[in-house]
């Protein structure tokens, strides 16, 4: 274990800790809306249904991602209700931007299958939203669905890009009996 840097002197005062309502000073990040996705192969015969997001980037800010089905107009003010198509949410505890030198946060791929070292800490994440009722509701209305993901920035550092916080590779519906 390498030594850490020398201790910091207390040079600034932390802010007030008084609880407050969701801050209006939060940056507004870009949302995502899919094209119409086919649910043809998904039957209604399930006990649980998940929306699985693969390849989710966590290198930047910390955010909440609200997921809506068939509501392309959804934004951070949209009620999180079934009537709004709200399916659930996931959260990302972000790295906070890159604090290293050139290449420090670069995840190189494809990973060699027998490399004994753990994969890069910024290997993209998988997030699962248990969305049984919302998917059942969407299936009740048709065999196509759009997925809108609204990122709400919760926290971050000066090194973060607060506009493009939401990056992922793939959305899947996974059902279970």
């Amino acid at each position, binding site marked *: *274990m*390498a*030594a*850490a*840097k*020398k*201790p*910091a002197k*207390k*040079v*600034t*005062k*932390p*802010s007030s*800790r008084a*609880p*407050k*309502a*969701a*801050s209006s*000073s*939060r*940056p507004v990040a870009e949302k995502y809306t899919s094209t119409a996705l086919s649910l043809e192969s998904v039957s209604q015969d399930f006990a649980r249904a998940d929306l699985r997001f693969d390849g989710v980037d*966590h290198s930047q*800010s*910390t*955010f*909440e991602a609200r997921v809506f089905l068939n509501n392309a107009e959804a934004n951070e003010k949209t009620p999180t209700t079934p009537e709004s198509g709200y399916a659930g949410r*996931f*959260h990302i*505890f*972000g*790295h*906070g*931007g890159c*604090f290293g030198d050139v290449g420090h946060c670069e995840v190189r791929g494809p*990973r060699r*299958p027998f*490399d*004994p*070292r*753990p*994969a*890069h*800490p910024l*290997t*993209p*994440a*998988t997030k*699962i939203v*248990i969305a049984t009722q919302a998917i059942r509701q969407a299936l009740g209305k048709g065999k196509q669905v759009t997925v809108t993901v609204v990122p709400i*920035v*919760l*926290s*971050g*550092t*000066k*090194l*973060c890009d*607060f506009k493009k916080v939401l990056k992922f590779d793939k959305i899947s519906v996974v059902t279970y009996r």
Partner: protein
Amino acid sequence: MSNLTLRPSVEGLEQAPDQLQALRDAYGKMQALRGDDNRSWVYWAGLHGYPQWMCWHHGRVGQGNPRRYNLFLPWHRAFLLYFEHSMKDQNEKAVLPWWDWTSDTSHSIGLPSSFTDPQVDGAANPLYSGPVPSMLSVPEHTSARYPGSPAELPTADQVETLLSLSSFVDFTLQIEDIHDQIHGWAGGMNPANSDEGGDMGAVATAAYDPIFWSHHCMIDRIWYLWQLRQGVNNVPDDYVQKPLAPFGLTVGDVLDINRLGYEYGVTEQVLTTDGPA
């Protein structure tokens, strides 16, 4: 049980002035040590984020195995254990408390008052903030928080739902998501500067904030409660031998918290030492 350290709730600790003072004393002494002293606050926080980045979050692809695995829970259990040892090395009476963000008090006031009072008895409160070294464009400072509304904190019902999940992989993904939420909630954004968040809100700086340790203690406790329902050794077989660097432990070594020397409770009070001979 007498040889086990009982980790109390923060609310329980606040009812036990001697224990609360011991925690402040231990944190204060660690924060006063030089950062290159491997007993110091800066050293331990730096293992998690900047500059050593050893923490485990989210799944990664395993060795010789295309399946992802996730050491979030066992890695942080080992991390807390050695941090607690280092803390006790400064004050043997200090114990690591868990912050129950589902409690009525938390849903009323948010962060516990013992962590939000800037000063105690006229001196800086070591539970309020800790030293953060300089890192790139972020200058050295003392940790800050801009917490959200208490109503946004997770509920006991949400935790109960987690405890009913029978698969470890399922459970760890869902509890990590709540963990992520709390980091964002506690860090928050500076209302006076919209491109600056609190330290809990980034992996780089989170562990420099004293509330980090009690948040993770809560996560560890929920894993323990899950283990009581779903099995202490309930992890995929191929997890057991995974190393938890740099602690010299494997996943299998940290499954039983009693073997690690601690237990979770709310409060502990000796009623008498005058029993029959």
